[in-house]
């Protein structure tokens, strides 16, 4: 796994802002405000408490959906990965459901769960559930029988195997699934927050842009949503380094 240096990240950020600034100068229309102006509005709405309020609502939805997905998909994946028979039973179902873009379920979930947080949390849960399920299942199934046998020969029964083999083996799979899907989860959260809610960053972006036509505020919302996605991604990255240090040795 490659490590990106902090200085390079900073340089890349400066580069992206520079491109944005240049584009703003060239296009010179209200639909593309300069980064400085957006920063100003961002800070204004942060101080007023409006943006943090929406941010926290979105964050809560993502974190709750993710936690729910890990708590259900990881054990299910472990069971499937450990038992060939159970896996044979369920794998056709998973095979059919896994590739469906879960975003198409948004209208249906809204019908069932209505307005409020539940629908949004369920959508994020659905996206992450299948991703985690499949990766944990494959990881658990790929553990070599020799490894299991040699740990059993040390006296390990089912519980100890779970604690010392299956659980640590599934951690990297969970984190990989999260790294691959938090971006999608935040994107779909945005879509879900366009409907039937007055809270969350998706709503804020939509409302500022389409109703109030306050473009700098809309951009501030986009920045906040990007920070949410990046924050989730960095957190997963950090967790991976902390929980799976053996993956970073060469």
């Amino acid at each position, binding site marked *: 796994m490659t490590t990106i240096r902090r200085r390079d990240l900073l340089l890349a950020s400066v580069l992206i802002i520079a491109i944005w600034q240049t584009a703003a100068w060239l296009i010179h229309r209200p639909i593309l405000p300069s980064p400085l102006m957006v920063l100003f509005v961002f800070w204004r709405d942060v101080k007023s408490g409006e943006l943090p309020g929406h941010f926290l609502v979105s964050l809560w939805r993502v974190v709750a959906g993710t936690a729910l997905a890990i708590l259900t998909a990881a054990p299910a994946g472990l069971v499937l990965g450990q038992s060939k028979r159970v896996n044979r039973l369920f794998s056709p179902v998973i095979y059919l459901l896994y590739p469906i873009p879960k975003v198409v379920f948004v209208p249906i979930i809204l019908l069932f769960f209505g307005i409020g947080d539940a629908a949004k949390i369920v959508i994020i849960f659905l996206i992450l559930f299948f991703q985690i399920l499949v990766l944990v299942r494959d990881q658990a199934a790929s553990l070599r029988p*020799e490894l299991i*046998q*040699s*740990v059993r020969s*040390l*006296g390990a029964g089912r519980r*100890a195997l779970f604690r010392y083999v299956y659980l640590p083996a599934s951690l990297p799979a969970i984190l990989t699934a999260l790294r691959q899907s938090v971006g999608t989860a935040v994107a779909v959260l945005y879509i879900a927050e366009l409907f039937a809610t007055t809270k969350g960053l998706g709503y804020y972006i939509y409302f500022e842009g389409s109703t109030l036509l306050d473009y700098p505020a809309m951009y501030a919302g986009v920045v906040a949503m990007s920070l949410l996605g990046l924050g989730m991604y960095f957190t997963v990255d950090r967790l991976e380094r902390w929980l799976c240090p*053996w993956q970073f*040795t*060469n």
Partner: protein
Amino acid sequence: MITVEALTFHYQATPVFEDFNWQVQKGNSWAVLGPSGCGKSTLLALLAGLRFPSAGKIRINGETLLRPRPHTGLILQDYGLLPWATVRQNAGLGLKVRNFYGADGIHAPRDHAPDQSVDPWLERLGLSAMADKYPAQLSGGQRQRTAIARTLALQPDLLLMDEPFSSLDAPTRESLQTLTQELAAEQGLTLVLVTHSIEEAALLGRQILLLHEPPNRATIVIENPGAGRPGTRESGEYLGLCRDLRQRLEMDPARAAWT
């Protein structure tokens, strides 16, 4: 120490063992020699309590084997280490498993003391300098030393080894063979080592059990009192035994399968 009585075992229609009898005395070093598919790894899995006879019995110290026994150590060719754990953590895994269950007499012996350290074993096996490394950062020989440390930390009285050195280069293999002899003598272990290498069997087995293409019914044992003496590798006795073993294996009707 080990009594195999009228053992029959099969995966499919043809039995691997049929009415097979064998006895291992305490403190002896045995090599089990035979071609691929002769059932030698199966025999070891049966002795380890990881598989169970279709008929007959395996008794260790008089007790019928019904599950893996806390005082039996098992070392496999490879893949036995947890990739996410350091050398120290891997070597300490058996002790951790015992602490996890407590001294229940099933997973851990009744006299298990929870506060044991693996550090003396890392020291003895020359692993102290790499205690914080992960298996992927080690050589094959160091990995196998870690597996040995993990097993010996549990103070076994019976050590089962399945092709433990076959993936290693020649010098590493020889040094680990010598180390195994030293440790077995030092700890008073009963050793059963499964191998397809004639030289290894002649070197480590004070008694050699020959297995052939299944079904195995007869117990063919070759005495090898010279095993384990210093300088064995160069002795005429050793070379003669290797020749003899090779001939016996070639007499096997299944020698076509012999690689």
